[in-house]
């Protein structure tokens, strides 16, 4: 990767939606929308509620399925001037493995991010990501079917994220990314109604950043595989905090909605920080917290 900045799944479409705003060759990679074996309509509208310094969503993995992705989306994005990764989700370990195997055949997709942490689907999703056993089962199934780089995206909606991270590492993951959204809820007091169609949703944005930073720090100290940090990163300073906490790379999510050009700006800002502090490489600041 040209730099440690990636865009988070579900916040950057398939990359092409942002080409008017971002020179994609200036970001390390993009992780395209959650893809499942079969098409999914997702949850009904309304799917979004704004909060102070964040937003809740319950999109529910709307996508047209892996066959549509391979036949129609991949040809459109395979030559984008950046690393293109695919976020993979499912409802059974077999689903996950079959979807991953289909994507393994796509030459220009060097890695997948396994979503065992979506809070917005009834089956699968986060259910696998909240116990070490569940996480391990899915990761093992996918590991057998997928020979390239396997990143596993972790849920923060757990008692001990380090236990899950270690289980995922033991099951064969090459890296972990964290955090997915925090489960939350929003209510309209005037109308006395829930604001999201399924009642609950995943919280993202600056509001979750301190939680994400803490979890990245803990996981980076618990595992030997690389950690990718995300959760409310909205500036180069935010990104650098995650790198200092131990992340080898970062993802930008909800901030893409506020400033569609933010990913490129963060990449530039990290370089400025390195210059200002006389570091020669991003590697020099990974986990480089001082006492």
């Amino acid at each position, binding site marked *: 990767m040209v730099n440690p900045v990636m865009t988070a799944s579900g*916040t950057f479409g398939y990359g092409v*939606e942002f080409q008017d705003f971002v020179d994609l060759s200036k970001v390390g990679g993009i992780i395209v*929308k959650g893809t499942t074996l079969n098409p999914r309509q997702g949850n009904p509208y309304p799917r979004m509620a704004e909060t102070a310094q964040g937003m809740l969503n319950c999109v529910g993995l709307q996508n047209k399925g892996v066959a549509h992705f391979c036949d129609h989306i991949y040809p459109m994005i395979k030559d984008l001037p950046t690393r293109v990764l695919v976020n993979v989700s499912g409802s059974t370990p077999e689903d996950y493995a079959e979807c991953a195997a289909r994507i393994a055949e796509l030459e220009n997709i060097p890695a997948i991010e396994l979503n065992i942490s979506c809070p917005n689907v009834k089956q699968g999703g986060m259910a696998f990501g909240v116990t070490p056993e569940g996480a391990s089962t899915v990761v093992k199934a996918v590991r057998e079917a997928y020979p390239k780089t396997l990143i596993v995206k972790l849920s923060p909606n757990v008692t001990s994220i380090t236990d899950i991270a270690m289980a995922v590492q033991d099951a064969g993951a090459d890296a972990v990314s964290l955090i997915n959204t925090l489960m939350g809820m929003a209510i309209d007091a005037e109308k006395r109604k829930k604001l999201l169609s399924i009642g609950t949703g995943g919280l993202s944005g600056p509001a979750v950043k301190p939680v994400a930073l803490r979890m990245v720090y803990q996981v980076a100290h618990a595992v030997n595989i690389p950690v990718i940090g995300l959760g409310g990163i909205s500036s180069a300073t935010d990104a650098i905090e995650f790198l200092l906490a131990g992340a080898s790379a970062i993802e930008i999510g909800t901030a893409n909605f506020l400033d569609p050009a933010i990913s490129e700006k963060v990449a530039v800002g990290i370089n400025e920080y390195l210059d200002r502090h006389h570091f020669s490489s991003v590697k020099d600041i990974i986990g480089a917290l001082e006492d």
Partner: protein
Amino acid sequence: MKKYILDLEVVEVSHPHPRYVLIKLTDTKAPLPEMVPGQFAQLRIDGSSTTFLRRPISIHYMDSKTNQLWFLVQTVGDGTRQVAKLKKGDTLNCVLPLGNGFTLPAGKDEKILLVGGGVGCAPLLYMGKWMSEMGCRPTFLIGARSESDLLQLDLFEKYGDVYITTEDGSKGEKGFVTQHSVLKEKKFDRISTCGPSPMMKAVARYATESDVKCEVSLENKMACGVGACLCCVQDTNDGHKCVCTDGPVFDIKELKW
């Protein structure tokens, strides 16, 4: 159509109604990009502690000669109230132009009815200007609660014939837009409408019964505005579609109304 993130300068702010603010902007560095009626912009909101996202606001009027872009914003929450606080010389960061516009007439003789209610009238003014430049004269049918809620009638009259209904009868015909006598007197080839959902649904019903083509502009709650987050979906006959990129203008035949 290429999309831009622009810092636009506020050249004029007025409050034509206690609940509305009219903001006129310009780009001091370059000509404003091309945009068509029915498209919208995502306005960055600064200084609001309770809101977070941009606000999608329709293009009210754009004139390349004066290099001005207008937004008519109804103040409904903390985000739009911050927009209403803008002053001359301030900067407003906008992502634009977004979405698909209204269907433009195929020829000068096509009879277009533009039905607006409340702040939904905003994009119809630009549609009127665009049509006028094509040599067409649209018919505007504007609904409001009361005479005091009718804005900018002089501007609409510049571009087309204006008919009005008010719920209290203080101006035009008393009742709702679908009850106006012009619908019985004139035959239209197409209706484009923007306004409160009950009004648009009533217009869509009228159009279906009268076998007139009809399109509506939806305003579902939105996050990204560029088709990435899939939050603003509308349930259509072809599944969930994004209002921001598949719309905001939809043919009523696509909708499950």
